């Protein structure tokens, strides 16, 4: 039986216009009213299509600047695609840009409520989950500490913990397993497997071929904004390593 598709991207393209000169004030616009501003076009994604099914764990690999994070933002609905479209048939919970995104003047509990409600949880659900979230992050002792006093690692752990509890159907993760000590990583691995086993769909962006081979069923390899390889996770992880080797050989010669 074919599994239900929960997230599909069809022929998504995205470019950013990089201005050659700054013009971001009313004053500058008024002064340069009739002058064209030269811009450079940066094609970040070209004609990218993929589908994610319920219960599937999909890996997304690629070198820095290959367009992974932009694709993840478009898939989350945070960025808009220039061409093509993304259709979500289930609730999407992204974990992006960890460590930033807190109100430094509020303590952990208030920040959990802020981030949790943004991620679509109700306050009732959140109040029931606050202890578990803090426990998952290993931050019970710092529940009433303002976020300004947190280290970036502590803040990132908290973000994971909230998102892991907020996820309903689909979880999109940017560079998971990159924070925390061995114990926290283990907890993340466990939680990831639980979500996978419970039929959630997962999209994991990573630089780490081992993580992708271990946690994903299938993977995509992005290079210069295009999908250059698609298949079983271990094969794509190997392809990524080849790409890296080829790139470093080219740089050496």
């Amino acid at each position: 039986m074919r599994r239900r598709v929960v997230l599909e991207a069809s022929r998504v393209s995205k470019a950013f216009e990089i201005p050659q000169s700054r013009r971001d004030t009313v004053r500058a616009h008024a002064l340069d009213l009739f002058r064209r501003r030269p811009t450079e076009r940066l094609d970040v994604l070209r004609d990218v299509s993929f589908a994610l099914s319920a219960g599937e764990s999909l890996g997304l690999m690629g070198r820095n600047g290959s367009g992974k994070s932009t694709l993840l933002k478009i898939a989350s609905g945070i960025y808009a695609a220039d061409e093509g479209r993304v259709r979500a048939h289930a609730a999407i919970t992204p974990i992006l840009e960890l460590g930033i995104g807190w109100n430094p003047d509020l303590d952990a509990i208030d920040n959990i409520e802020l981030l949790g409600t943004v991620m679509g949880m109700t306050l009732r659900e959140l109040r029931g989950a606050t202890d578990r979230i803090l426990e998952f992050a290993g931050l019970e002792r710092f529940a009433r500490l303002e976020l300004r006093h947190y280290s970036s690692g502590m803040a990132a752990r908290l973000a994971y913990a909230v998102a892991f509890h907020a996820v309903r159907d689909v979880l999109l993760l940017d560079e998971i397993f990159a924070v925390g000590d061995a114990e926290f990583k283990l907890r993340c691995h466990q939680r990831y497997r639980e979500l996978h086993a419970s039929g959630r769909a997962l999209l994991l962006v990573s630089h780490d071929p081992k993580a992708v081979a271990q946690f994903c069923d299938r993977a995509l390899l992005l290079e210069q904004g295009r999908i250059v390889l698609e298949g079983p996770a271990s094969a794509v992880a190997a392809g990524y390593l080849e790409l890296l080797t080829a790139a470093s050989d080219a740089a050496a010669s």
Partner: protein
Amino acid sequence: MFAAPGIAARDLVWTLVRTDFKTRYHGTVGGFVWALLKPVSMFAVLLGVFSYIFASDAQYKVDLIIGLFLYEFFQEATKTGLLSLKAKGYLLTKARFPSWVLIVSSASNALITLTLFSVVLVLFLAMSGHPPSLAAVGLYTIYVLLFFVIATGFSLAASVLFLRYRDLNQVWEVVTQAGFFVAPIVYPIGVLPERLHKFLYIWPPTPVILFARGVLVDGRAPSLLGHALLCGEAAAVLALGALIYRAHAPRVAEAL
């Protein structure tokens, strides 16, 4: 996409309002007292000073205080609204949710202050022997709500435009400073020739301040046409703001 969209959206607004308030007053009991104290003490100080300066004209000082507080609300609400997307942008890159929630909830602190002031004002009027009627208080509440709608309409447009024009806040500050003297706050509108009045009424604080004074102090409701025009102005500002917001909203996260 919310599991229980209504409840989750309501909880998000409530959390934004609550944490904004908490950030501002540092979440202490003392903080709440400060929030309460600000409009009360300001009212007392202004009343004391103006009673001394304008001893001969008892009504002028109340008119002046109403004008000052309403204008302060407008200035504060539009300023925080204009900056709201930039200030709360860190939430926009976290999850998909309608960014207008951040804009609409940004004026909450200003609205809380104005509400407290309004309570103090009505109490003062009652104690000084001129209690406003229930209908007057009702009309005043409607004016405040329309004022909130106008500030929100402005903020919807300004907050997305600010991401493109980073000096918009400076420009707006100058406009509101000049606008303070366009609205008849320190001077009675009667000192200006009648033919100019209609232009002054285009500036939203003018009708709101004059109408509020009319119902609370003079016990005189503005004409039906006046009410219709104010409602029309609020609807127009909100519609225009929503249009500009809609045009820019899909790219807001990229512009941060």
